[in-house]
């Protein structure tokens, strides 16, 4: 009958028995799958945050540009008494109205201007 091992011997044997390299290996499939799923979830959350921030910044820039842009001004209308106005700046509304009145009468607008300037 073998003699009883000492307490220290039993302790050493236990250290050996519970050494990780001597323990059966386990795949840990579910834990690793869970860790992977968590990685994917966190990645998607980060992506959503980045996209959200980018969208917010983009909207802010567009909003700022719209708010600070000066409204389009109409062409300067010629003063009624300005003799040089009219053809020089293109046909204005009043020119067109004048043409509509004078054309049926066979009077050219330039002629009328010449009369006025005299």
């Amino acid at each position, binding site marked *: 009958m073998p003699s009883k091992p000492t*307490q220290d011997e039993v302790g050493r044997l*236990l250290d050996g028995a519970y050494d990780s390299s001597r323990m059966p290996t*386990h795949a840990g499939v579910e*834990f*690793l799958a869970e*860790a992977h799923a*968590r990685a994917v979830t966190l*990645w998607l959350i980060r992506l959503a945050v980045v996209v959200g921030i980018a969208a917010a910044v983009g909207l802010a820039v567009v909003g700022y540009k719209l708010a600070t842009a000066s409204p389009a001004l109409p062409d300067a209308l010629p003063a009624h008494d300005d003799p040089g106005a009219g053809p020089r700046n293109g046909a204005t509304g009043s020119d067109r109205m004048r043409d509509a009145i004078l054309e049926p009468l066979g009077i050219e607008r330039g002629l009328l201007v010449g009369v006025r300037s005299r």
Partner: protein
Amino acid sequence: MKAIDERKLLVRTARGHGPSARLLWELYAPRLIGFARSLLASQGAQEHAEDVVQIALCKVIEVPTHRLRKVEAVGPWLFTIVRTSALNHMRGERREMKRRVHAAPAKDMGPPSSFELLRRAVEALPSDEAEVVTLRHAGGLTFDQVSEVLAIPRSTAASRYSRAIERLRESLAEPEAPLKFVEGTRYAK
């Protein structure tokens, strides 16, 4: 070899770093499973040990990282979580275990090694003694840490350990004797 900062490993795993999760598993799983087996052995549910450890580690990675950074000693903390997980499992499984006449026979994996026989001898100890032994030797915990994990005085942990070692000494002196320390144990040579 570069020493591993276990707390960083935990935090990285919780942040979804795959290689860290794998390393954490390789580093701790065998010992945690050995500990869980010693607890579950009282109900003949050793084969559930891996599941219990996986559930516990899945809970660990859900802990917020700012709390993980406050963990002082990773090893004892993990053993505490696995213990809670195993006890919960046992509570859930108790009814099913009582209905069982015999535990399912283990698959034939060839003759067990001497280390395997010793681990079985530990699993056949009363569970309060077995968990002290596995925490000491599988977890590498000090008596102070063991008493923290089990929420018992240090002197109680030390006396349970002494009793367990004495039983193991007797068992090793009589290798032909059945590995039987408690009534109703499943292991016999």
